[in-house]
C-alpha cells in the first residue's frame, strides 16, 4: 500500500512537471522492438529452450532550458522474454539533471541522478569501463549497462577533462535465469541476496575519478575507482535446482582499481590500449592484486576498389593474470573485419573470432545492422563457441551457438 502511494506521488509529480509547459519544449524519442534468438543444437539443461522471442521498449524524454545550461534526461528500459523470467526485466537507464556553471575562469558541469558513463577505446573488451554495472542478461557481449545513481562533477580545461563521481547505490549484475540461454553452468540466482564480504554491503558509497586529455593525434585517460567491484569475485553454491543444477549467488568485494586507456592515430592506423590493475580489499581474496590488459589496432582501407565501402581490420590481444577470477580473455587474440558500406541505410558488418592461445577455444561472431526506410533498424548477430575446455567459462556455452535478430522501430 505504501509503495503504491509512493508510486502515485512520483507519477503525480512527473505529470505536474510535464503539464506545466515542460512537455511542449521537451522531446520524446526512443524505440520499441522485437527480438528472436534461435539455437542450432539441443540445450545442456532440460529447462532451456531452442528459440526465444522477446519484446523491448526504451522510451526517452529530454528537455533543456537556461540556454542549454541545464537539462533533464529520462530513459526507461523494459524487456519481456518468452521463457527467461530473469530476462524479463526493467531498468531506469537514465533519470538525471545536468547543470553547467561557468564564468570566464571556471567551468563545471554537475550531473545528479541515474546515468551512464563510458570509458575506454578498445573494441572487443571494455576493461576500464567500471562505473556502470553490466546488464549481462541483455547480451553476452557485456555492452549493455544498468543505470547507476551518481553525482558527477566534470570540468574541461586547456589541460584536459577531470571527472569526479560519487556513486551511492550499488547495482547487482543481472544474470540469465534457469531457462535463459546461453548461461553459466551453475544457475546464478539474483532473486536471493547476494553476498557482500564487507560490512557496509549494498549501502557502501563508491568513488571514481578520471583524467583525460589529448595531444595532437594522441588521446589518453587515467581512471581510479574505489568501492564495490562490479564483477563478482566469486560465486557461492547455495542450493540445487529441481533439474539437479547447482544454484549459486554472486560474491561482491571492495576493490581499488587504476585504469589507463590510450589511442593514437598514425595515418590509417589507430592504435589502442587499455590496462587495469585491481586490488581486492575485502573477503577471502583480500590483498590479491590482478592485472589485465587489451591492446591492438584498427587499420582502415577507405573506399575499397573505388567504391564507398570502408574495410577495417581489427586486431586486439587480451591478457589477464587470472588472479581474482577465471575470465574468458586471459591469453586471447581477437581479429575482425569491419565493413562500413557508407550507404543511405548505414549498413555495417563486423565479423571475426577470438582465439585462446592456450586452449585453442574459438569464439566467432558476426554483427550486421542496417536501417530499413526512415524509422526501422534490423540487426542480426551470429555467435558460435568451439572447443571450450571443461572448467573454463565458455564450457557451458559449448552447445549454444545462436543467431539473434532484432527489429526495432525508432521514434
Amino acid at each position, binding site marked *: 500500500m505504501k509503495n503504491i502511494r509512493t508510486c502515485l506521488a512520483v507519477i503525480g509529480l512527473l505529470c505536474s512537471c510535464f503539464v506545466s509547459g515542460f512537455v511542449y519544449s521537451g*522531446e520524446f*524519442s526512443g*524505440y520499441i522492438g522485437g527480438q528472436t534468438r534461435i539455437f542450432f543444437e539441443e540445450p545442456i539443461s532440460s529447462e532451456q529452450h531452442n528459440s526465444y522471442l522477446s519484446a523491448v521498449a526504451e522510451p526517452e524524454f*529530454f528537455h*533543456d532550458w537556461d540556454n*542549454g545550461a541545464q*537539462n533533464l534526461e529520462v530513459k526507461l528500459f523494459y524487456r519481456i522474454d518468452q521463457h527467461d523470467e530473469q530476462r524479463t526485466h526493467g531498468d531506469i537507464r537514465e533519470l538525471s539533471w*545536468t547543470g*553547467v556553471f*561557468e564564468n570566464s575562469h571556471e*567551468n563545471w*558541469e554537475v550531473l545528479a541522478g541515474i*546515468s*551512464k*558513463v*563510458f570509458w575506454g577505446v578498445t573494441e572487443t573488451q571494455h576493461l576500464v569501463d567500471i562505473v556502470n554495472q553490466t546488464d549481462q542478461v541483455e547480451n553476452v557481449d557485456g*555492452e549493455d549497462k544498468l543505470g547507476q545513481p551518481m553525482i558527477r562533477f*566534470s570540468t*574541461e580545461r586547456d589541460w584536459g*577533462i577531470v571527472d569526479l563521481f560519487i556513486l551511492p547505490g550499488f547495482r547487482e549484475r543481472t544474470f540469465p535465469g534457469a531457462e535463459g540461454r546461453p548461461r553459466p553452468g551453475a544457475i546464478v540466482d539474483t532473486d536471493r541476496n547476494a553476498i557482500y564480504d564487507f560490512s557496509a554491503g549494498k549501502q557502501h558509497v563508491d568513488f571514481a575519478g578520471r583524467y583525460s586529455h*589529448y595531444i*595532437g*593525434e594522441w*588521446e589518453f585517460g587515467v581512471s581510479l575507482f574505489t568501492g564495490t567491484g562490479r564483477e563478482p569475485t566469486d560465486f557461492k553454491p547455495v542450493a540445487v535446482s529441481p533439474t539437479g543444477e547447482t544454484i549459486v549467488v554472486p560474491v561482491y568485494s571492495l576493490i581499488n582499481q587504476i585504469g589507463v586507456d590510450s*589511442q593514437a*592515430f598514425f*595515418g*590509417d592506423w*589507430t592504435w589502442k590500449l587499455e590496462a587495469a590493475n585491481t586490488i581486492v580489499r575485502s573477503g577471502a581474496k583480500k590483498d590479491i592484486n590482478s592485472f589485465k590488459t587489451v591492446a591492438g589496432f584498427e587499420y*582502415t582501407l*577507405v*573506399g575499397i576498389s573505388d567504391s*564507398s565501402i*570502408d574495410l577495417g581490420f581489427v586486431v586486439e590481444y587480451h591478457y589477464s593474470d587470472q588472479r581474482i577470477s577465471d575470465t574468458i580473455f586471459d591469453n586471447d587474440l581477437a581479429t575482425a573485419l569491419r565493413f562500413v558500406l*557508407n*550507404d*543511405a*541505410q*548505414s549498413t555495417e558488418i563486423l565479423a571475426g573470432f577470438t582465439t585462446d592461445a592456450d586452449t585453442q577455444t574459438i569464439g566467432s561472431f558476426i554483427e550486421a545492422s542496417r*536501417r530499413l526506410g*526512415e*524509422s526501422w*533498424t534490423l540487426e542480426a548477430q551470429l555467435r558460435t563457441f568451439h572447443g571450450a575446455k571443461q572448467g573454463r567459462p565458455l564450457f557451458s556455452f559449448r552447445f549454444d551457438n545462436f543467431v539473434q535478430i532484432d527489429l*526495432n522501430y*525508432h*521514434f
Partner: protein
Amino acid sequence: MNTTLNIQAQVILLITTVLFAPILAHAESAEDESAKNRGMAIAVEADKRDTGFVDFTANMVMELRNKQGDKSTRTIRLKTLEVIGDGDKSMSIFDKPADVKGTAFLTHSHALKPDEQWLYLPALKRVKRINSKNKSGPFMGSEFAYEDLASQEIEKYTYKFVRDEKLNGIDYYVIERYPAYQHSGYTRQVVWVNNKRYVAEKIEFYDRKNSLLKTLNNTDYQQYLDQYWRPDTMLMENHQTGKSTLLTWENYQFKTGLTDKNFTRNSLKRAR
C-alpha cells in the same frame, strides 16, 4: 612542287619550334605563374569577404536520392565558430533518422595539420575520437564527402585561374584548385566563382583518376548581415553512380554569442 614546299615548311616549322621552344616554354610558365597568382588572389578575396561572421547556427535537411528515385532524409543542426588564423570549430547534431537522433560530430579543423574530430554516440553515452586523416569518405551515406563539408581554408588548396565565363547573364571566374593534402579523394576541382559576390556557385570534382565524379550546384544565395552569402540549396550530383544529395538550409543565424565553451567534448554530450 607542292610536296617539296610542304616538306620545306615542315622543316622550317620544326627548326623554329626547336629554336624557340625554350622561349615558348618560358612564356608558358610565366603565364602559368600569373594564372596561379590570379587563382590565389580570387581565393584570398573570397576568404576575406567571408571573414568576420564570428559564428552561425543553421538547420540542414539532407535528402539522399538514388538512381531509382528512392529518397532518404536526414535533418541536422549545425553550429560554427569562426577561428581567425586557424580552421573553424563546428558541431553537427542529428535529429533524423530517428535511430541516430542525438548523434553529434565535433570538429576542430585546421588548415594543414589533421582536424580533431569526435563523435558522440548517445546510446552508449560514448565520446569517440575519430581518425579524421582520411576525409574522402561519404558523410552519412550522402554524396558529400567529409572534405566537401569541412571548413574551407585557403591553405587547403593550390589554385589556378582558368578563364572568365558568362553563364545565364552572370560573370564567373573559373578557377581550378588542387587539394594540398594527400588523402583527398580528388585530383582537382573546377570552381565557378561569382565575380561580384565571390562565392562558389558550381564546383566540379574530379576523382583520383582525374575523371569527372560529381557536380555541386549552390543556388538561392541569401546575404546575411549585409555581407555574408550563404546558399539555401546545394545539390550534389554523382555522375558515376547516378545518385544525388540535396541540402536545404534553413534558419541561418549569425553572431549568436557562441564561444569556445560550446565546442568542447563535454558540450558535445549535451548538444542534443
